């Protein structure tokens, strides 16, 4: 598996026994969580959804950590070194509004209807064909993304620690396999919460020391404005329609493509995320899951973007053919340059933890969809519950092995983040169209879900692989093309859904209770638990607070 995306050999970190002890302790704790969570698994609901019993702060931190995989961290630092402060768009407009929408508007339907997965909602709202299609698409995508994580981990570990790639893959794969097979989703979520704190403990020192090295924020800003131009340090500079910027996107494609379609598709219908909220202990906690996650998400951009910007100052040629360092090397480079043994061990541990959590989020959602939505629904039906717990464990093993096999797919893309976004634009965009129309339009017919998914996926793929890759229209970057593909997929899916609905039978109103806006299901009317009426637990306050805070964050970067 030798590919051109390997990190430079000079990135080897000066790790010593202290760093390895810190890493070793972490691996022991990870396995310990798996073994300790094992006794909490009795039913399939325990294994796949933690028995719908976790508190909101746990599911909320897991919600943000499931997205804070190492591919995201390294990829967003890479984005920053390449495009500058534009990176903030992936957080403030590309995440917060969608997370708030999920919590305030969609969660009552998801949680209240008691579905165990995102595809299961489609089964209730539409029909079996849309359910099966989305289940299979999701299962394939989850394995692909888990494979991307594993492959990226192997490259990074080889460069930083000198382990051969197969060793890194086997070790990380084994630990993920072990703790999910033992403790199911509880174990995955608990490890995500732990990883959240460890990764921050690694990233904050890198950010602080990096800033100090380049003379603080002013030094950073001055030096990049000089070398990369004034727009590099602003969020919106150069994004007028028709003007040229390195991102290859204008404000309209950023707002619609990234902020609306891609972001809502990812955050509201990607089961790897939504699953964390579905495991919450009641509707209030489920609603608060993405809202609690939104606050750390607003600020995480600083600890990934600043290291990327600092790397762009220290290595002006980063990412160009004349440099040994690629954009993805930004954070590893700073770790090597700035961190002494001790904190270095924490940062390495955080990075490995993030890789494993990124993979585990996909594996734990894959096993749920494969077992409850595919196996139990279409293949081996109506067996006793114990059977499905055993099958869930078996399919976890198979899923991890399959993701190891797909790791090589990641090698043909230079920027890991771009690869992930490409996949999301194909699989998640049509899902979002189908959800949004299905949830807000009673008339959307049973068949329209399936055809909306097909049309949206096809349109996004055609736009990306034919129209963009063949050069029929000129878009300067993969990221810009992703935004446009997402919009194309959304529009095609919406048009086809409306057209099909007009000619096919709607779902009987009696079967739509609790699934469509304006209807109520029994699960929604449960009384709030004791203490949930405290003002700081009000979903509306949390949600709007996050939106206002994200908008306010734009102000210093907009002029």
């Amino acid at each position, binding site marked *: 598996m030798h590919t051109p995306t390997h990190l430079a050999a000079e990135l080897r970190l000066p790790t010593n026994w*202290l760093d390895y*002890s*810190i890493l070793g*302790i*972490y691996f022991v*704790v990870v396995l*310990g*969580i798996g073994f*300790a*969570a094992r006794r*909490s*698994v*009795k*039913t399939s*609901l*325990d294994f796949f959804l*933690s*028995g*719908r*019993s*976790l508190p909101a702060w746990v599911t909320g931190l897991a919600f943000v950590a499931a997205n804070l995989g190492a591919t995201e961290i390294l990829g967003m630092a890479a984005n920053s070194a390449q495009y500058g402060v534009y990176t903030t768009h992936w957080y403030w407009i590309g995440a917060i509004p969608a997370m708030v929408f999920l919590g305030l508007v969609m969660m009552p339907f998801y949680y209240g*209807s*008691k*579905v*165990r997965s995102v595809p299961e909602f489609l*089964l*209730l709202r539409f*029909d*079996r*064909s849309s359910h099966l299609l989305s289940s299979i698409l999701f299962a394939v995508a989850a394995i692909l993304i888990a494979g991307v994580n594993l492959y990226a981990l192997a490259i990074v570990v080889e460069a930083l620690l000198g382990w051969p790639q197969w060793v890194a893959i086997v070790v990380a794969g084994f630990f993920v396999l072990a703790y999910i097979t033992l403790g199911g989703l*509880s174990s995955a979520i*608990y490890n995500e919460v*732990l990883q959240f*704190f460890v990764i921050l*403990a690694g990233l*904050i*020192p890198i950010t*602080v*020391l990096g800033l*100090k090295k380049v003379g603080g924020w002013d030094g950073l800003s001055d030096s990049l404005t000089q070398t990369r131009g004034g727009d590099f340090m602003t969020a919106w500079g150069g994004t007028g329609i028709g003007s040229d910027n390195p991102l290859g996107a204008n404000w309209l494609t950023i707002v619609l493509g990234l902020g609306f379609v891609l972001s809502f598709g990812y955050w509201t219908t990607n089961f790897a995320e939504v699953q964390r909220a579905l495991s919450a*202990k*009641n509707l209030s906690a489920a609603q608060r899951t993405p809202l609690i996650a939104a606050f750390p998400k607003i600020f995480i951009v600083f600890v990934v973007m600043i290291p990327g910007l600092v790397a762009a100052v220290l290595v002006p040629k980063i990412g160009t053919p004349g440099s040994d360092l690629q954009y993805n090397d930004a954070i590893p480079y700073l770790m090597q*340059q*700035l*961190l*002494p*043994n*001790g*904190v270095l061990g*924490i940062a390495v541990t955080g990075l490995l933890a993030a890789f494993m959590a990124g993979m585990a989020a996909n594996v734990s959602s894959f096993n749920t969809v494969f077992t409850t939505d595919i196996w139990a629904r279409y293949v081996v039906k109506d067996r006793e*519950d114990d059977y499905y717990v055993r099958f869930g464990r078996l399919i976890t093993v198979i899923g991890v092995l399959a993701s190891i096999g797909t790791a090589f797919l990641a090698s043909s893309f230079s920027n890991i983040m771009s690869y992930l976004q490409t996949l999301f634009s194909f699989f998640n965009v049509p899902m979002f169209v189908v959800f949004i129309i299905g949830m807000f339009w009673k008339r959307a017919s049973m068949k329209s879900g399936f055809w909306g998914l097909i049309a949206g996926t096809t349109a996004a793929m055609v736009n990306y692989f034919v129209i963009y890759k063949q050069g029929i229209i000129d878009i300067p970057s993969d990221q810009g093309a992703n935004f446009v593909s997402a919009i194309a997929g959304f529009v095609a899916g919406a048009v086809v859904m409306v057209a099909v609905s007009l000619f096919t039978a709607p779902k009987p109103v009696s*079967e739509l*209770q*609790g*699934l469509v806006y304006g209807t109520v*299901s*029994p*699960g929604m009317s*449960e009384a709030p*638990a004791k203490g949930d009426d405290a003002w700081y637990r009000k979903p509306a306050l949390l949600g709007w607070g996050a939106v206002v805070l994200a908008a306010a964050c734009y102000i210093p970067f907009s002029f």
Partner: protein
Amino acid sequence: MSDSYSDKNVQDEVSELETKSVTAARLFDIRRIIGGLFVVYGVIVTIAGLVASDDEIDKAQGVNINLWTGLGMLVLGLFFLAWLKLRPTAPPPPSAEGAGPE
């Protein structure tokens, strides 16, 4: 394809599983693990900071980063242990909420 599947089936199935679920009763509290790990890490990294050589401090731009990070992690760990002490895990309700009249 006839589709007789309605939300009743899923809701009944999940409601029944909720009554048998044991996660709430048997799952340990994660605050204990976070607290414990960060206290251990905090102590290790703080000690590394206390015995830091000049080379290490120079590398980190003149900041004793091990000391500060170690103390920060120690505080976070103690915060979680204190939180656990002050607000222990609530015992699960005798009859699970989800098993109520639905």
